[in-house]
Structures are given as C-alpha cells and as structure tokens.
C-alpha cells in the first residue's frame, strides 16, 4: 500500500494568483497522477508526472496553466496558475502500485 499526504489541505485564493500543491508519498513510485474533482463530480485526470521528464497532460489541460514538478520518486507539486473561480475544485494526488491510491485532496476555493 501507499500512504499519500498533501499540502495544503484547503485554501481560499484570489483570482489571478497561483497556488502550489505538494504531494508526498511514503514509498518510491514511478508515476504520480494529478486529478481534479469539481464539486459533486467524478475525477478527471490532469496529468501524469514521471521523475526526470516532463509531465504528460490530458486533453484540456496545459502546462502553462498546471505546471508540475517531479524532483524525486516520492514527491511532486502541481501549481494552479492565474486562478479563476472555475478552478475551484478538489485536487488529488494519486499513485498506482498494483492498485490506485489517493491522497486526501486539496480543496481550493477561488474568489
């Protein structure tokens, strides 16, 4: 199993600002995933982050808006840039080790 922690757990931000979300895993993993979950909805994959290479973004998500870092095998960050109220969501970090594990999420509210 994998234990994942995220910081911050929640934040309220002003539009036009940026927020960086941190994800820490208790074991080394090759791939880390970032998801967005809008209120009352399911999970949408933003990107897959591999250590030592650029993240792979899903359709509808771009690096300029959601830059990702993956400096080592246990850590990743997702930045939500130039935020607007439409970015208000829960952002979840996840890893796949035989099955998928999720962090507790970062609840973001953009005013």
């Amino acid at each position, binding site marked *: 199993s994998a234990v994942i922690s995220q910081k911050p757990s929640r934040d309220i931000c002003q539009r036009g600002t940026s927020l960086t979300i941190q994800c820490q895993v208790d074991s080394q993993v090759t791939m880390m995933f970032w998801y967005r979950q809008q209120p009352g909805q399911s999970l949408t994959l933003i990107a897959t982050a591999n250590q030592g290479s650029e993240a792979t973004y899903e359709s509808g998500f771009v690096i300029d808006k959601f830059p990702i870092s993956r400096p080592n095998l246990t850590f990743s960050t997702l930045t939500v840039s130039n935020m607007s109220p439409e970015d208000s969501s829960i952002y979840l970090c996840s890893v796949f080790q035989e099955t998928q594990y999720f962090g*507790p999420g970062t609840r973001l509210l953009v005013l």
Partner: protein
Amino acid sequence: TQLLEQSPQFLSIQEGENLTVYCNSSSVFSSLQWYRQEPGEGPVLLVTVVTGGEVKKLKRLTFQFGDARKDSSLHITAAQTGDTGLYLCAGAWAGKSTFGDGTTLTVKP
C-alpha cells in the same frame, strides 16, 4: 477514450434497504475498482475485481465483474447511515484509470 457510466447518479434510501449501483462501459478493462469517498477526503479503495464473472463480498457489500469485463455492479444489503458517500467505479487499462461519474448515496436513519 474509455468511458464508464454509473447509475443511478443519486440514490436516497432508508436505513435497512438494499441497493445496487451499476457501472457500464463499451470498453474492456483489465481490472475494475470501486471506491468510496466521504466529504473532504480522497477516494478509498473498496475492492478490485480482475476476472470476468468474479464476485467479491465485503461484509454487506457484494461486487460483481461482468463476464466480458466491461461492466460491474455494487450491491449493498441492509444499508446503514455509515454507507453514505460517493461511490466511484474506475476501470484500469495500461496503468491508467478511467473513473465513472459517481453515485451519491444517502442513507437516512
């Protein structure tokens, strides 16, 4: 793109009732997972089914994977208020998961 459709989207029942949630796709998955998510938390894995036709039981929860590995169901017997939450199915293929739209279950006392 592999899509998963869950039904119903919302379900509100009385404690003690039974319910079934369905997860359907036109795509084949190597495995399928069911998660439960409570407000303010990330999804927590309930079960993984891998073999077509497989049935797994977890106390009052029964999970079934379709013979063709394209669909699954979650049946809860004698629901309790603690079963309230968002239930998500996710199909895995090539190391990635596709999530269904979720079923929001409310069990009233």
